[in-house]
């Protein structure tokens, strides 16, 4: 399902805190409820500093009662969609889309390995429930920084039993991805949702195993990098410009607001259309996209402006403002 989504009014029915910084939202659409498939998201119109914007949130659980459920982690260092969501009280009016799906779960595979990190559990939780209910051969590896960060843990333990393994980062626990992939049945698939570091580790382990590339499935989180988001300065000598990218804004948005002509499409680091050349940097380019390969990222020739940032310094980039 990557059907076009339709927007409509909705009401926030209830909220419930799952962890100290993850909150569950139950949303009742005014129009037709479209039953979401595992891996689906809805788009929510949000207000950030009084400015309208859109955020995508994974659907949580099977939603059999006609309400959409999403879970939102309150993030201090990102673009402000979560702060808006956390400001809402039950009864609040929302504008939401019908579900879309960029992370579809295929049926009938001999085995499924699910890997979730932090808030990345949201689509993975829904998949785990669907697979367990269908009697599929499924295992879940679930990692969080701290013990109190695990959402849905009781439910997952009940449904999956020993097929659930949890890993607490600050206690030094790490999943052995090479070993887990090695014991995955031939034709089995790996589904990953989590921070970019986890995703890249999974991609490397998958590649090293020699398995078919299409059997590694993942969804990107444009807002998670190897470094915390911070404000950084951008110089564009071709345009005689120097702009500041605030901590809660993407480089792409900052460029567009400054009047730089840009093309873009996915805005989540997948398509590569918004990539620009890096001329130099005195910081570290935090590549948060999945468009460039590891080698291309290491070479630092270009960055995807929709998601990637700079940590600990400034960057000088070029644009396409020239005849040829």
């Amino acid at each position: 399902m990557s059907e076009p989504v339709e927007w409509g009014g909705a009401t926030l029915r209830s909220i419930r805190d799952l962890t100290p910084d993850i909150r569950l939202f139950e949303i009742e659409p005014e129009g037709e409820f479209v039953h979401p498939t595992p891996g689906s998201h809805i788009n929510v119109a949000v207000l950030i500093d009084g400015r309208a914007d859109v955020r995508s949130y994974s659907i949580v659980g099977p939603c059999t009662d006609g309400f959409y459920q999403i879970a939102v982690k309150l993030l201090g260092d990102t673009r402000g969609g979560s702060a808006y969501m956390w400001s809402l009280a039950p009864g609040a009016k929302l504008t939401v889309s019908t579900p879309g799906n960029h992370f579809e779960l295929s049926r009938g595979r001999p085995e499924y390995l699910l890997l979730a990190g932090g808030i990345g559990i949201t689509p993975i939780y829904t998949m785990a429930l669907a697979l367990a209910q269908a009697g599929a051969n499924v295992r879940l590896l679930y990692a969080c920084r701290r013990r109190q960060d695990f959402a849905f843990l009781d439910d997952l333990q009940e449904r999956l039993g020993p097929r659930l393994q949890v890993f607490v980062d600050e206690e030094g626990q790490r999943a052995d991805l090479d070993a887990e992939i090695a014991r995955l049945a031939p034709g089995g698939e790996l589904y990953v949702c989590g921070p970019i570091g986890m995703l890249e580790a999974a991609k490397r382990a998958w590649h090293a195993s020699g398995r078919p590339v299409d059997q590694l499935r993942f969804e990107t989180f444009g807002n998670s990098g190897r470094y915390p988001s911070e404000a950084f300065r951008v110089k564009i000598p071709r345009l005689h410009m120097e702009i500041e990218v605030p901590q809660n804004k993407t480089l792409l948005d900052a460029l567009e607001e400054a009047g730089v002509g840009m093309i873009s499409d996915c805005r989540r680091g997948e398509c590569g259309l918004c990539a620009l050349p890096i001329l130099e940097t005195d910081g570290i380019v935090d590549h948060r996209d999945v468009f460039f390969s590891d080698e291309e990222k290491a070479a630092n020739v270009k960055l995807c402006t929709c998601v990637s940032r700079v940590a600990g310094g400034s960057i000088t980039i070029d644009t396409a403002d020239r005849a040829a």
Partner: protein
Amino acid sequence: MDAKPFPLNAWYAAAWSHEIKHELAARTICDHDVVLYRRTDGQVTALEDACWHRLLPLSMGHLKGDEVVCGYHGLVFNAAGRCTYMPAQKTINPSACVRAYPVVERHRLVWLWPGDPALADPAKIPDFHWNDGTDWVGEGGTFYDLGCDYRLVIDNLMDLTHETYVHAGSIGDEAITSAPFDVTHTERTATVTRWMIDIEPPPFWAKQLNRPGEHVDRWQIIYFQAPSTVVGDVGVAVTGTGAPQGDRSQGVNGAFLAAITPATEKTCHYFWNFVRTFRTDDEQLSRDIQKAHVNEGKGVYDQDHVVLEAQQKAIDRNPRMPFYNLNIDAGALWARKLIDAMLAEEHPKPHVPSQAAE
């Protein structure tokens, strides 16, 4: 959003098995454009017939092994619908895929499930065993893109009084219009049973029975399985030999088979066959019967074809819906009621607050 008139969570015939080879074949099934092909392991794959990138029909591309290469920019999709190659980049966009539809081959047909794949249980494929080519034999065909709502074909088959007027001279007979009939149903099936006792056999059946001068008991037992297959158990036996009580040994028995697949709201694919249990190794008879059904406009199904398309045109020009119904439409109305129940299951009414009348 207006719901379409066909349920999506159902198996629909998409092709005859023999039509699907190791090459790309396009079909429209329930408003979904799909491309079908047979893989090297003999299994059939059905993918969304539109490239993820620029929507060019993948059926305009070509197969490379068991993968489809788009004919525009060379994106490659495997049998699961996942992109395995993108030009001019080192990675593959993780969202890049086309939909893969559940397909199962059974009863010499390829059945496709256009709805939620999680619900695609092969046990729900209609019972169409008459088409297996074993006990019953016959060679049918398909009217692809017949210009009418698929339900008009069901109406046509569920009420055979039309034979008297559309198919006079072959299977039509005044007796059909005067014989009583019985309609029964379950949650997913409807059956129209009509016996015409002690009548002159109509020309087609007189020839098959080959008992000149004898009167016959004629039966038409039409079995509908929702949403859109119809099997008509039909035949004649010499009057007084016990056919209505279950002994058909002094008769000839055939079955008309119809798997009707909505293509769009106003077109459908009509997979048909006429099979029989008599003279089963007479291949010339199979060809003759096929010709009696479809023969450059002169066969009985050609006659239906003309009526059905003309009816659809008239419906489009006369927005008087629903139609008026007669007693003879009981079978068709049960069939439509079962279809409507499937549609209601798929499209639950939004919970609108009730407005109390005061």
